């Protein structure tokens, strides 16, 4: 390759420095928040005068925070399952449409990704008010599902594009019904795409705050919503502890996902 790292000569050093700076820029805030979570001062003093685990103790004994984690998890997992199922049906439908409608369908399903989230949020809020879904689990899931579906449809469409339809046709000519051919032949080949769809869908719900603020009720608050609420009242180091927990969880999640992906190959 012309532009491989080895061929860059003296530029290599410059490139290394730039890479280091960018990484530092990305990592610094995270390091800061992790350090603050162990800070003994309740006023977020930096550098921390003493180290303590007090905020973590507070966090893990607070039923409100634990409840929020549960809500986030329940909403996230429900959204994931529904998003992958609906995404699969949708993507298969779109990819097999031969008409001129295909691009229109595709755009329609990817729309929530392009639209400003706040617009989606307000529209959903206004609509849910009418049909009394505001503040319900069901409403929450539907709202996040709308945000998650484009990622799922996109990932599965991409996966389908890499599968030769002739393989499924071969199965049908072998005597299998179309449905059985999809279940037995196409779906197994689609596993990596379904996996990506699941991860993206979960993350779309897990760290979403704008729509969640509109959908939340006092008893139904996801973690990002509670962080937002607490920030407005008082700035306690518990927030730093929550953030650290989220950073660790997300990190584990992505590592796990990448690990499983490379296992599959």
């Amino acid at each position: 390759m012309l532009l491989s790292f080895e061929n860059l000569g003296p530029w290599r050093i410059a490139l290394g420095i730039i890479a280091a700076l960018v990484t530092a820029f990305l990592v610094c805030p995270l390091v800061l928040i992790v350090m603050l979570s162990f800070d003994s001062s309740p006023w977020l003093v930096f550098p921390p005068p003493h180290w303590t685990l007090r905020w973590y103790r507070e966090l893990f004994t607070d039923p409100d925070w634990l409840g929020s984690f549960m809500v986030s998890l329940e909403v996230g997992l429900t959204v994931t399952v529904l998003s992958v199922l609906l995404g699969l049906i949708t993507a298969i439908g779109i990819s097999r449409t031969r008409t001129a409608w295909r691009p229109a369908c595709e755009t329609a399903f990817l729309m929530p990704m392009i639209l400003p989230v706040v617009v989606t949020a307000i529209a959903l809020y206004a609509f849910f008010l009418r049909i009394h879904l505001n503040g319900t689990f069901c409403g929450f899931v539907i709202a996040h599902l709308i945000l998650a579906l484009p990622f799922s449809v996109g990932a599965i469409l991409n996966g389908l594009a890499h599968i030769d339809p002739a393989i499924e046709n071969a199965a049908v000519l072998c005597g299998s019904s179309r449905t059985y051919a999809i279940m037995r032949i196409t779906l197994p080949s689609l596993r990596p795409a379904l996996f990506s769809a699941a991860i993206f869908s979960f993350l779309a719900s897990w760290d979403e705050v704008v729509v969640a603020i509109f959908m939340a009720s006092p008893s139904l608050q996801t973690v990002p919503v509670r962080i937002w609420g607490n920030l407005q009242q008082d700035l306690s180091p518990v927030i730093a502890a929550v953030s650290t927990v989220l950073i660790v969880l997300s990190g584990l999640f992505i590592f796990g996902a990448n690990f499983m992906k490379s296992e599959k190959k």
Partner: protein
Amino acid sequence: MTAFLSIRNLHKSYHGNVAVQNVSLDIRKGEFVTFLGPSGSGKSTTLYVIAGLMSPTGGDVLVNGRTILDVPSNHRNIGMVFQKYTLFPNMTVRENIAFPLVVRKRPRDEIEARTNEMLRLVRMEQLAGRYPAQMSGGQQQRVAIARAMVYEPEILLMDEPLSALDKKLREEIQGEIKRVHERTGVTILYVTHDQEEALRLSDRIILFNTGRVEQIGTCTDLYTSPRSRFAGQFLGNSNFMPVEIMDAAAGTIRLPGGACVENVRICDSGDVDHPLLMMRPEDLTFRKAGDCASSFDGQVRSSYFLGNVMNYEIGIPGDYTLTMRVYIDGTEHPPQTGDRVSVGWLPHKAIVFR
């Protein structure tokens, strides 16, 4: 005799673009028929309609006199091998071959026995446990043939199954296909645009051109009696030369040089603007100068050796070039590049298209 598989006035267009028009064929049981033709001539489309993967815009497909157009693909009992590799990537060779029997819910010992039989037929017993990604293209296509044959379909469709393979492997699997055909007596419809493959395998060739059937016949029919310039040009090499027809009934023509020749076959081809004489390279021979009317005087432009035959390019007056292929028996001295020669031809073997 009624045909086993009949195609009647088949027509297929994609959004107004005609891919197949007015194709009619009758195929006997157990026949090996090849669809030959240039790219985009409608061979695959015809095959897909028979398989039920596409529905025609007109016409009918009959098996034993009954239409199969209303039968879904998976109930047509047709086997198909595709140009692309279509083994199921998540199954081993054995599972791939057993799949058609599994979906038919056959008893387990029958599946076992049939699968073993097919593995033996395509000589893949050693690799039965492999996954498609662990095999060469030729091995995959052999498994695909076994999978398409395991449920004993009456018709086997093959759409350029060997076009992705190199020449040596292609010939090996051609032999394999021929053997499978002889052993099982299945009716095979085979698509290729490789004329050598068509000649080697088939009982009959169906020559396609721009969505129509140009000519149907045995390999020798097509080679010795092409019915159009297209057919003459597509199968084998040919020399073409514009001529004038003096007397169509007697087969008298006038060559560009002015000489008249009798007894030439005249054929209404419909794909030429001007009468055109066709001569096969192997029908040309060297003569002594001025021997007879049906000869051309010229000069050897180039020659190359092909085992026991020589290939010559002869320049003749009027700026035409004749290609000829001559058997060399070693007794006489063959002409060299630059030599002046006289080339004779046999009027009854030549054809004039008009």
